[in-house]
């Protein structure tokens, strides 16, 4: 039997917080398929992580020790990972949807010709013939809909967004194997690190005011900024606002931007495409202002103001 693999991302801060949610996703597959669940980690010092990676549902932990390797050396790490995956012949490989892991596994997918699906938010495993099919659910471009993807070969790599998933329980006593894959020399060498102090982050803000395409008209965005200043909130926006240079990239909320967890979130002129709403987590109170009564944002928000934002903002600024 092929087995399901969960990739444990290890950075210089230790085990990524994506790991336990990813194990929970993995267990949701093995509960149906009856396969083994294997945790796989790679890197310099990976061999020391046997205890830290124990988790409910994990049957086996494989640690690929590559002395001196940096996580950015994807040229050699991909080759080492591919050799393990080839040997173990995993059916499904779950990977966190981080920048680091997605580039690494894109290389693995190409090496091994494994179908790869990106940025899934949930999985649904069904029996199919002798085996199972793992339906991969992800937001679709441009609207408030989710699509179901399937991989039609016998191996798949799925990158998962883990923000919404209950983590698996840590602990257990799965057997640990440390391996030493032949990695070779990387063309990439790390020379140093330059720290950048990020300005006030919208990530931790208690109240966030989000501006969308509708705010690009007249002086609406000026008014939104004034309102945010008045209530001591952070200003953020949707992708079109960032693409057009109205807000810095770091302040773009959404699937491809920053995830926020405020207590209260105002949206002005935001249509509510799922790429945007995927960036709002933690069940805040959402108050949406949009002149289109059919805007998708109203099926996401708690409170709806169907009105032109300009006059509402004028009243808010009085």
């Amino acid at each position, binding site marked *: 039997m092929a087995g399901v693999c969960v990739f444990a991302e290890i950075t210089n801060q230790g085990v990524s917080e994506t790991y336990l949610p990813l194990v929970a996703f993995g267990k949701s597959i093995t509960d149906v398929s009856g396969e083994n669940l294997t945790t796989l980690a790679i890197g310099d010092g990976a061999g020391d992580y046997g205890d830290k990676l124990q988790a409910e549902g994990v049957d086996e932990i494989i640690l690929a020790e590559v002395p001196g390797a940096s996580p950015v050396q*994807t040229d050699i790490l991909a080759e080492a990972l591919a050799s393990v995956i080839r040997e173990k012949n995993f059916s499904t490989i779950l990977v966190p949807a981080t920048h680091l892991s997605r580039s690494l596994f894109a290389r693995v997918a*190409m090496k091994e010709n494994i179908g790869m699906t990106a940025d899934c938010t949930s999985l649904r495993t069904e029996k199919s013939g002798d085996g199972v099919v793992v339906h991969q659910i992800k937001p679709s*471009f*441009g609207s408030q*809909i989710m699509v179901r993807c399937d991989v039609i070969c016998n191996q798949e790599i799925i990158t998962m967004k883990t923000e919404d998933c209950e983590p698996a329980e840590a602990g257990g006593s799965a057997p640990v194997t440390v391996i030493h894959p032949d990695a070779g020399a990387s063309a990439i060498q790390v020379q140093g690190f330059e720290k950048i102090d990020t300005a006030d982050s919208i990530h931790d803000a208690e109240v966030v005011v989000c501006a969308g395409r509708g705010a690009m008209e007249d002086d609406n965005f000026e008014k939104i900024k004034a309102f945010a200043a008045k209530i001591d909130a952070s200003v953020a926006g949707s992708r079109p606002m*960032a693409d057009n240079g109205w807000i810095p990239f770091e302040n773009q909320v959404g699937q491809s931007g920053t995830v926020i967890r405020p207590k209260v979130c105002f949206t002005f002129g935001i*249509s509510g495409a799922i790429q945007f709403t995927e960036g709002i987590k933690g069940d805040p*109170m959402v108050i949406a202002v949009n002149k289109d009564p059919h805007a998708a944002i109203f099926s996401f928000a708690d409170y709806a103001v169907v009105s032109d934002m300009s006059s509402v903002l004028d009243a*808010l600024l009085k």
Partner: protein
Amino acid sequence: MKIAVCVKHVPISENVEVDQNHRLIRDNAESDINPCDLNAMETALRLKQEEGGTIDVYSMGPEDATASLKKCLAMGADQACLISGRKFAGGDTLGTARVLAEAIQKQGEYDVVFTGSESSDGGTGQVGPMLAELLHMPDVSETVEVKAGNGLLNVKKRVDGGNLLLSVKMPVLLTVPFGCNEPTLPTLRTQRKANRAEIPVVGEDDLDLSAETIGEKGALSIVTGLEAASGGNSAEKISGSDDEIAAKLYELLEEGRNR
């Protein structure tokens, strides 16, 4: 230095439609060059300015994609190439990378290949690293600055809290994130000149690829249906005069803050 830049022509409106196969209907969608591809183009131009050499720009897509290629020519690219064919359509990231790799290898050898970090429509971020794998190059994603020196490239890679400083052997593929530099957009004069350029087209018959590995036929990850989005509630409507609405919003703000 020989530089290649791969760009994608993407729909810029969020209100796009999908067909019965859940693929984007691209015909009606207003499209433009993928935003971070402009940052990739700018990074390439700065490298060319320092080191000399040429920039060839590639795009796989329908004929409309020539508009994005012409924008790159107007910014300072030396040559452009459209990769277009019915058999290329409907592919997944593996198929797209194979077509790009074959077209690029056919033109010659490059020292540096740039792509944007991800497209604004698909957003997988996979094509760059997959292309690097096929071109037998290392790749650095999230590259925000590049300088050549001592036969190597010194690359700044954006990570949490700062930039990693890397030295990389060439040839290499670099992916560039949105917003890391200020692209020098074309002037009216350069754009006009670029608009008159003949863009050569590389088609299915020009590339030595098995039809089973590209396009819809070769796609391994496919969309099989739609799912209801979670959290489909209906919001409580707030109405009244603007002042009444404002008063209610301040009430809600207090309530939400104290939750």
